[in-house]
């Protein structure tokens, strides 16, 4: 799926370099819209405070998911736009890109949403997001000192995530 494509108004960012550093940022949300993790590698421009930023990102995905399901040409029965869906109901999108970035998205039936923003020419990151979900399970969910629904403070998770992201994008 390509959004906002067509005429290229602003120039693309430099082509991806071979080794790493092409990831911009990552978000992990739970179903209640709580941002469990925000990690930033390369984001020169910031105009919003973090709370606004997180809320906007969550809202974008929530609306987009609802819209994409509504526009699904293959399914006859669907609710009205904005009517809440059960988790896993309807189709789901996994990425979009603009001329300046690509957003990859994965949502689990338990309501965990993983968002990775990278260079627009990055390939399919679905398997990578699955891998990151596994990191989350190993180092966050199984950490005896982690309380579900709270921001992630695990050093070992952050280090592993940084390393992995550098290797893929």
């Amino acid at each position, binding site marked *: 799926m390509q959004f906002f494509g067509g005429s290229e108004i602003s120039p693309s960012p430099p082509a991806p370099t071979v080794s790493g550093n092409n990831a911009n940022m990552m978000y992990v949300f739970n*179903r*209640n*819209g709580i941002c469990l993790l925000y990690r930033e590698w390369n984001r020169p421009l910031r105009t919003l405070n973090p709370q606004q930023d997180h*809320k906007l990102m*969550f*809202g974008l995905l*929530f609306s987009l998911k609802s819209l994409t399901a509504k526009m699904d040409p293959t399914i006859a029965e669907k609710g009205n736009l904005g*009517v*809440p*869906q*059960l*988790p*896993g*109901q309807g189709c789901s999108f996994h990425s979009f890109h603009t001329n300046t970035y690509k957003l990859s998205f994965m949502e*689990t*039936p*338990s*309501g*965990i949403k993983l968002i990775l923003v990278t260079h627009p020419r990055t390939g399919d990151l679905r398997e990578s997001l*699955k891998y990151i*979900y*596994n990191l*989350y*399970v190993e180092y966050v*969910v*199984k950490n005896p000192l982690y309380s*579900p629904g709270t921001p992630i403070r695990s050093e070992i998770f952050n280090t592993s995530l940084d390393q992995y992201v550098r290797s893929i994008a």
Partner: protein
Amino acid sequence: MAPAGPRSGDAIFASAERVNAELFTLTYGAIVRQLLTDLEEVEEVNKQLDQMGYNIGIRLVDEFLAKSNVSRCIDFKETAEVIAKVGFKMFLGVTASVTNWDADGTCCSIVLEDNPLVDFVELPDTCQGLYYCNVLSGVIRGALEMVSMKTEVTWARDMLRGDDAFELQVKLLKQVPEEYPYKDDE
């Protein structure tokens, strides 16, 4: 529709890292003993075990989803089968079966073929009201709540209380749709 995940947890269990069941069983025993000392009332211990199971369930569901590649859980019948055939095997190395469906498909029984929690256990006279395995009912309730199914899980049969099997009754109360979590004025 494509199946939502594997039919059995055998392969996942075989490839997973495993520990001796005795470490697990004895640790669980230590938890129950701690609760009996802390809370004194058997009824309170039952409640706390269920709560602890719930706390485990809301975490464990992510491990389950990550390892089993289950991508959706919409149909309760399918979900109950997956818990029994994949979930129990994947974590405890035992199988369970689903029976006793009611007419409208919202209530069923999960019968355990083996139960590693209860090796070495016999309830003393002072703990006769104890649901020793109550952690399991909590786990199922917690895990299902995370996939938006509100359930009530109770013991229909308990071998430690003289029944001929371990049987959990799982009743679907409602499925909760995804709501936009923020209020406009936030």
